[in-house]
């Protein structure tokens, strides 16, 4: 069916050049409207960002009733920021709420270290994907092809988060058996100073 129709079109074109020129003019008039630019974040980062953030929020929320409002509200604000308002500020506020929820859960001892790493890591990946998506949307828009740099960016963040998470987890496993308080404290002071100086 489809091959037949293309064959007909071709023969028409060869039969009369004038007609095909007319057809081209018509076509160009149809497509002649100006292509705008849609500054929405591209779909992949919207999907990845929302999905991982909701996952992270769910994991932190599910163990502690007190964290539930933070998780739900945070995920809501985040999703609205990424899907509706395209604002990094909303993303950050949403993320901050979810992370507050996770700290509350953690403070009650409701989360095992494994779950905590998973949840916080997922929230970070979602936040990063969402922000990147909004930046790409602002600069390139949704009509442009942007799959490759999104893919590279999101996978790099995921990989780094997984690596850092795994490393911290291994260190914590090592230190779990009877850590000397002073040693931990010294590490903490070092981390504190370095974080502050490398602050972002």
């Amino acid at each position, binding site marked *: 069916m489809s091959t037949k129709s293309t064959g007909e079109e071709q023969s028409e074109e060869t039969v009369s050049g004038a007609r095909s020129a007319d057809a081209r003019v018509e076509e160009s008039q149809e497509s002649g409207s*100006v292509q705008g630019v849609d500054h929405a974040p591209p779909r992949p980062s919207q999907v990845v960002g929302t999905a991982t953030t909701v996952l992270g929020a769910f994991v932190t929320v599910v163990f502690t009733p007190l964290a539930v409002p933070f998780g739900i509200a945070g995920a809501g604000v985040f999703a609205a920021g990424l899907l509706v308002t395209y604002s990094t500020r909303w993303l950050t506020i949403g993320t901050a709420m979810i992370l507050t929820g996770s700290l509350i859960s953690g403070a009650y*001892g409701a989360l095992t270290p494994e779950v905590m790493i998973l949840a916080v890591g997922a929230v970070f990946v979602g936040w990063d994907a969402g922000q990147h998506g909004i930046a790409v949307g602002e600069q390139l828009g949704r009509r442009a092809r942007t799959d490759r740099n999104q893919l590279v960016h999101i996978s790099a963040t995921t990989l780094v988060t997984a690596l*850092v998470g795994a490393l911290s987890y291994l260190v914590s496993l090592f230190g779990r058996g009877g850590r000397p*308080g002073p*040693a*931990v*404290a010294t590490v903490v002071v070092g*981390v504190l100073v370095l974080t502050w100086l490398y602050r972002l």
Partner: protein
Amino acid sequence: MDIVSLGRRAGIALGTIALGLGIVFLFAPGQAAAVPVTVLVVDVAAVVAVVLGLWAVRQRLKGGSRRISVPDVEFRLATPTPGDEIDEKVYRMTELREGTLEYREQIYERVRDVAVSVLRQRRDCSREEAEGLLERGEWTADDHAAAFLTSRGSGGGGQSLVTQVVDRFTDRESAYEQQLRATAGEIEALAGYSDEPGTDRTGNSGDSEGPDAMASDVFSRDVEANRVADDVLYFGTLTTGHWSGIAAFSLFALAVGLLTSQPAILLASALGVGLAGYARVGTPPALTNLAVTRTVSDESPEPGAEIDVSVTVENEGSSFMPDLSFVDRVPPTMSVVEGSPRLGTALRPGGRASFSYRVRVTRGEHDWPLQVIGRDLSGSAEREAEIEPETPVSCAPRLETVVDAPVRLQTSVYEGEVKTKTGGSGLEFFSLRDYQPGDPESRINWKEFARTGEFTTIDFREERAARVVLLFDCRESSYVSSTPGEMDALNRSIEAAYDVFASLTDQGHLVGLAAYNGVPCWLGPSTGSMHRQRAREVFAEHPAMSALPPSLAAKDEGRYVDPMVHIRRQLPSNTQLFLFSPLADDYTHEVARRLHSSGHLVTVISPNPTAGRTPGQRVARLERRVRVRRLRDHGIRVVDWETDESLGLALEYARKRWQA
């Protein structure tokens, strides 16, 4: 080295030492006893962490996330609509409370002038009578409109403070706007100009599909450029703040973790610190190793044609470029009709990517850069560069047409196609007259001689070529359009002029070009293929006919040229003029009248750029109609060319009207 960076280095050294010691202690618990740790120390550390965390939050809120901005290159340059300046004044008056008295006075004057002109035409009365009618408010049944145009009301006013406050907060139109709208509506009704009032009330906000960035930021870059290679300009780097805020979380988590002694939270804090470090290490890639090739489907297209542009970029360096954004900075006179001139990609060494789009071109020489934004892997730093691939597109009209442009009865001495009202040699019978010595033998009426024996001579209708100059009003006020994204009146005029020029030369007339603007432009009436070629060059390249408004085009030799002096000095006698102008102000009206009264027949071809979305635009539309009317009263032909009409059609209607 200043004190801050010195302290910073010391701090980094201290932190590293502490971290190292701590790890040593973890492995060798015996040594740790030397460090005094109490609950108090832990609490203090937590408090410090919280304070620093708050500081980091503040920084995030202050800085937010910044990105290198990219203009909407897809759209044409946005041009204003006549009357926008009135709306601007109304806005300043009612919303910003600026210049209330003078703006009110200016708007009042304009509206009143229009009303007087319309009244004089419609009621067939003198200026004094019309002013009297306005003064007494007897011209309309609408109270608002009548009050608006009395000298006491002098443009509305007199509303209570309460209404003003309510208007401000309810986002309603102010009383002034309501009065102005009512007045514009009443004058329109009086002029017999029926346009459903309020049909495009929403049109104000309906322009969302148009470009939102005004042209100025397409051109002006406040960042200093730095040429790093023959065709690459660097615009500096930017710290995006993409990960900013993660340190705050780490610090809070540290504090909570210390206070509650929960290992899970300390772990989350460590994750945050790790990611903060990741965000720190990257630097944006060097963009000098990008090879860009741009190909166009047609390097010398016709104006209005659509050409395909495809751009291929290749990473010729040896390092991975993880995050690249390419935006082809299509000139503001072109619009993208298919595809997107943008691409986001990642390029490994030797990797290449391409994108293509289709643009509609306008006349002129075009050469445009490719904007590249390179980010590091974590997205925390951006570098902007411009690469200039050498792909000039030169677009000149072919000057061939099927449109038939009507000339008037003012001719040159050359043979041509205009049937004059004088007798002489020719084809068509014109008249009989007495023989005068020297008349050619062939034109003697021999039959008459045979019958009566007297010599008479037959005159035929002389057919002459007309001498025509196409004159363009290229001042800033001609760059107007009825909607912001549409082609402006001057560019429409010039595109229409291709047809008129070609049609007139095809008919054997002598055609010239002229424009008035900051730059004098004159191509005397002539004919022949060389002349046609020169005309193409003028259309395509002459700065006076730039596709961009003078305020945005290259700023050279911007001096005032008086068309009265510049054109009239060069204009041969017996030359007709086709004057292209949107008639958006009184100046061109005056030009047309003066040229007409100095013996040139003038045909004004006026693309209509007016719209009726706002009161101001409606007033401007009325003003233009009054101008058209006054020109016609002076015997000047005016082709009122609507936006959605082809010029051929407009000329056909006009011809019918002139013949009737």
